[in-house]
């Protein structure tokens, strides 16, 4: 656990050292604030104290941003050779992968914590559905964790960051839309499997306020599968 935390700390501080964290926070807070308060169906236009539009914008911003955050995590280490440095220290491949996952996840958590003032101010304007806000945040956290895990996997199978970014985005698009669309087109047993794989559906059911163990298990298994696949990609150096 201690080893994982050492990696997490380094990952997190490297985001802040490289400006990546500030750019991400600036755009994330800026966009979500803009759409919550000023533009389109903002609170004043609809006259309802709700964070609906905030969650919508936050969701899409994170969907695009997470691949950009995860793309370098393993790809760069493989390219510069520092992965060898890391893995010849008393730490195993799994701890490295989990440490990196936690680093990005914490950055997203920090970004979301910084949006709590939106919630507080909106709550002062009018009555807010507090339960809905909590499940909204929970949904964002679970969805982010799933895409971070996918992003790290994409980063672990190539040493090219752009390829890692695009790959993570493409896998994300499958989970976001294509599985759902295919399910409609195919139907039957295969359709049911694809409906289960559709991330959007699980996200919606959580944000609607229904915290079902089925959805939690879904997100947990995507996170776990992504991390295991990344570990396998690292261990692969020993297979012939």
């Amino acid at each position: 656990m201690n080893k994982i935390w050492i990696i997490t700390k380094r990952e997190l501080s490297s985001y802040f050292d490289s400006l990546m964290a500030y750019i991400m926070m600036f755009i994330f807070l800026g966009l979500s604030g803009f759409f919550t308060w000023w533009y389109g169906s903002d609170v004043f236009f609809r006259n309802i104290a709700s964070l609906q539009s905030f969650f919508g914008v936050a969701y899409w911003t994170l969907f695009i941003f997470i691949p950009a955050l995860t793309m370098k995590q393993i790809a760069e280490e493989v390219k510069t050779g520092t992965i060898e440095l890391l893995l010849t220290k008393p730490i195993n491949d799994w701890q490295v992968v989990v440490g990196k996952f936690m680093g990005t996840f914490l950055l997203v958590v920090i970004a979301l914590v910084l949006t709590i003032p939106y919630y507080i101010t909106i709550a002062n304007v009018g009555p807010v559905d507090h339960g809905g806000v909590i499940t909204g945040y929970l949904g964002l956290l679970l969805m982010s964790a799933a895409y971070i895990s996918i992003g790290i996997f994409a980063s672990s199978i190539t040493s090219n960051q752009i390829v890692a970014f695009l790959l993570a985005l493409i896998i994300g698009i499958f989970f976001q839309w294509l599985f759902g669309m295919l399910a409609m087109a195919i139907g039957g047993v295969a359709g049911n499997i694809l409906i289960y794989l559709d991330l959007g559906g699980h996200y919606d059911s959580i944000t609607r306020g229904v915290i079902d163990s089925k959805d939690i298990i879904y997100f947990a298994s995507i996170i776990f599968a992504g991390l295991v696949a990344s570990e396998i990609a690292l261990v692969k150096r020993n297979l012939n």
Partner: protein
Amino acid sequence: MDIVVEKITKVYGTQKALDDLSFRVKTGEVLGFLGPNGAGKTTTMKAITCYLAPNVGDITVGGISVKKDPELVKKRIGYLPENNPLYLDMPVIDYLSFIGELQGVVKKDLPARISEMVKVCGLTKEKYKKIGELSKGYRQRVGLAQALIHNPDVLILDEPTTGLDPNQIIEIRDLIRRIGQEKTVILSSHILAEVEATCDRVLIINKGKIVADGTPDELRKAAQGNEILRVGVEGADRQVVYDAVKSLVTVSVVDLVSNNNQLLEVQSSAGESSKKAIFDLCVKNGWYLTELVSIEKNLEDIFREVTKEN
């Protein structure tokens, strides 16, 4: 802490990088690992440091197998990989502290260890700079500092002096020799002079197999075979000298050195020395001896001899 490499074989695709390789390194020994490019030096080092697992065979470091407890083995090893990969965006101090934490240095000892390493490796002025801003020589020192941060018993250095200028090479060699007095060190190189200057023992490998093993002196002696002398004699016709030398009992072959008509290359028969006989011959005939040098093979010749393609 002894390192025992036992019959390891490593295959990359269809290519055998290591072929049933076995050797052992004793505590306090500095072992030089020589070989042409692609001989398997780096692969062996990666196997000892648990980065790559051999397909067959086992390695133990201080009695602990890399297969059973890689984490404990890695704790005992300080490793400087080939090309010295570093996190270029980290300041030297932060980097050393990160590696120290990973190596399990106790938190309260860490600042003292870092400042000691900074001092030993001559990084005092550079310690707050980002590694990316340092020159190659200083980066190499950072690489050494991170390998030494947890005071390991075993030090593995893959081509520690590549890309350094002559002054830096000498500094790094001194450092390795100083460290090598109490630790087990394996260093790879293809610079033979370096191995000769720093190592107690030399291991030459080619195509994943050991082709020579011994101290630099032993290797030289083994490759030497018969005594070879370069002899210069004046005061008589070359043919006369040639015949006279050839008729000596201890001499087996005499060659003329082509670009100098007064020089001969004289090879003695096995186990014999012809120095005294040649000197006596000159005295008897009243010739001047201008040169009498025994030609030693250097490590370069040995290296070429044992690694050349057949």
